């Protein structure tokens, strides 16, 4: 049976080059990079090489990169860290309503500390209008955080326009680029952001590795206090193998981004069009054009996404309903809710996230299998029966 792993937003397999690079740092080069003897200083040099590789992917100076344990930690550090360190400047934080939970819940945590938090709504494609942001900014605003692209619907935001608005008003701007890294170019100067989060997993680097770019003169409060690692910005002995693997994955991602983008766009378009043609009552979620090259998200009326995932997996197809957290909590996706998708439609959410390892044969396998699976589930669905009777 053909296997089609199309859930790369959840996890990716490490590249062989990444595993090869990491391996010596579990054994031969085990020393603590903070030590001053040669075993440690040698490792420290390799850590700094990896920092430069990650910085290159973002067009940043290496000293502006802080390694973290995940994209979620980088997002926490950006939102909480900037708000806490700059409270005298302002007490208000603005985020979009479709942010990842690590941004939304950091903002909600700030509310508990009596910050004023504004959750800005998006349009039906999931985009935040820069004009709306411009009208919302005020003198008390200290930080705006908007994700570059959404992990559930693939929509890409107008980051450069929003960052420029914030710069004019002296407001710090953070972009969560965890979903977009490796899929579309990310340049800190082109985007004009003050802070930017990424993680290693989306580019087939190791789990448990993230990074935060912090522009010079942007004050942030460290969240993990302790030693002098990461220039006092993030304490804790470095995850050296993870950092090395992240560096290699970043270098390869930067090198291959144009080639991968073309391939992914072609596969994505085939999948989007194929589903539209073969499956009735299927609604594409997110922006039809301004979306990630490897992202396909649909809602199928009258069935549940979890049942779809289960039956697809029995056919060797691995996808997701969108947000793993919302799915496990049996809650409707807040992202789809923010788009105005009706709850009975949103429950049939299915998300395919492709990467460089996917091929056309896998897409054809999905298109051959999915219509039958959807039909089978609809035959068992009382909602579908109602739908047919209403139509008749």
């Amino acid at each position, binding site marked *: 049976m053909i296997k089609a792993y199309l859930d790369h937003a959840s996890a990716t397999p490490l590249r062989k080059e990444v595993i090869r690079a990491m391996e010596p740092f579990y054994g031969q080069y085990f020393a603590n990079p903070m030590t001053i003897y040669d075993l440690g200083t040698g490792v420290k040099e390799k850590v700094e090489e990896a920092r430069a590789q990650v910085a290159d992917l973002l067009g940043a100076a290496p000293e502006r990169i802080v390694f973290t344990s995940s994209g979620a930690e980088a997002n926490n550090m950006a939102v909480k860290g900037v708000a806490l360190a700059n409270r*005298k400047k302002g007490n208000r934080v603005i985020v979009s309503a479709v942010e990842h939970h690590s941004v939304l819940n950091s903002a909600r945590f700030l509310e508990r500390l009596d910050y004023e938090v504004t959750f800005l709504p998006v349009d039906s494609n999931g985009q935040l209008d820069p004009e709306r942001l411009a009208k919302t900014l005020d003198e008390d605003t200290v930080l705006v955080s908007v994700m570059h692209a959404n992990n559930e619907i693939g929509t890409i935001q107008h980051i450069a326009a929003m960052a420029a608005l914030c710069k004019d008003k002296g407001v710090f701007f953070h972009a969560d680029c965890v979903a977009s890294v490796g899929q579309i170019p990310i340049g800190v100067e082109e985007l004009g952001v003050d802070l930017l989060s990424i993680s290693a997993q989306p580019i087939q680097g190791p789990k448990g590795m993230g990074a935060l770019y912090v522009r010079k003169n942007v004050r942030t409060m460290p969240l993990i206090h302790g030693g*002098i690692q990461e220039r*006092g910005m993030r304490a804790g002995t470095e995850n050296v193998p993870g950092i090395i693997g992240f560096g290699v994955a970043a270098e390869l991602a930067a090198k291959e981004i144009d080639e991968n983008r073309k391939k992914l766009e072609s596969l994505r378009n085939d999948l989007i069009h194929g589903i539209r043609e073969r499956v009735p009552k299927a609604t594409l979620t997110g922006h039809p054009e301004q979306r990630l090259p490897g992202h396909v998200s649909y809602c199928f009326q009258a069935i549940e996404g979890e049942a779809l995932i289960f039956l697809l997996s029995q056919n060797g197809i691995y996808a997701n309903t969108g947000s793993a957290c919302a799915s496990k909590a049996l809650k409707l996706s807040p992202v789809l809710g923010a788009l105005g998708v009706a709850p009975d439609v949103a429950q049939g959410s299915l998300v395919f996230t492709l990467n460089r390892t996917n091929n056309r044969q896998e897409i054809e396998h999905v298109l051959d299998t999915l219509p039958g699976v959807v039909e089978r589930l609809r035959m068992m669905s009382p909602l579908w029966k109602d739908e047919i009777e209403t139509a008749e």
Partner: protein
Amino acid sequence: MKFVKNQKSDDQLDLVCRMCPMHLLEPGDKLRCMKKGEVLEVLTDYDQALEDIPNWCERCGQDFIGVEEDDDCYKLYIRKKN
């Protein structure tokens, strides 16, 4: 403690929110990239730095110029001597 006002500087190091001993590690790295005679401005909200940084300058042969108190931090000035 010598207090100064409107001291000009060639570069700045913002260590506000950073904990000990970053105020004793970062200035050395920064000064290594500066020219002799240039002045570094160190921003910190760590009270102990008022004692530590002048002592560090003396030990390392750098010239501690003085301190200015700002709204939310101290500004300490170091002239690179070597």
